[in-house]
């Protein structure tokens, strides 16, 4: 594990963390959109 590996690991980790959070948000947004559709239909 020479120094560069640590560097890339840190950068990749940063985007992995942000990516995971954005993925969670996307899934939550999809669920909300589905609820809105359901409410519109039966509202």
């Amino acid at each position, binding site marked *: *594990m020479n120094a*560069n590996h640590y*560097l890339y690991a*840190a950068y990749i980790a940063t985007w992995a*963390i942000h990516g995971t*959070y954005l993925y969670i*948000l996307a899934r939550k947004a999809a669920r909300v959109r589905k609820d*809105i559709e359901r*409410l519109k239909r039966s509202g």
Partner: protein
Amino acid sequence: MKRGFTLLAIATALLLSFALYAALVIAPTEQTMGNVQRIFYYHVPSAWVAFELFLINFVASVFYLIRRSTKADILALVSAEVGVVFCTVVLITGPIWARPVWGIWWTWDLRLTLTLVLWLIYVSYLVLRRFSTSSQTPLLAAVLAVFGALDVPLVYFSIWFFRTQHPAPVIGGGGSLDPRMGWVLLYNWIAFMCLAWLVCWTRYRLEVAQRAVHESEAMQSLMEGAR
């Protein structure tokens, strides 16, 4: 509104890629630590953005306690959540940096430890919001946020003095700060702030939609009730 959002998204993407390029190529290699020092351009700006978000959370919480405005409550929730994400980045990149340079995964460095404690406080803030069964969850969260903010100076001084008694390597201080490095640091900071702004905006709109859905579902049976 929609146009503003996409503009910001594009700007953020450009800024982030340029900042990445700057961090990896433009910035000079630091003599003592070599390339691994470039983690500095992600580690330190992320910490600054995290602290800014927690500051926004504190201000929004105080504003909620005074004015009880739902907007302030949603802003407090959003800034806490995104703040924790940036904090996690700091807590992961810190040890990855410390390992090759000092051979240790963790050091009670002042800023790193402060970030850890803030991370613990704001995770407990998010857990309280999730587990609360009270109809006044925003109020409880705002109170906890104020307690958290009151804690920060005490945490700072306790760790500062603790470090003077147990000296430990400093993350982020270390190498000489060449002016070009300063610029690259600034690019990254701005890029990360744009990212934070973008994510907060999305999360804010999502929360507003979520609450609207909850409300209409709750009132849905109002329609049934009023037949």
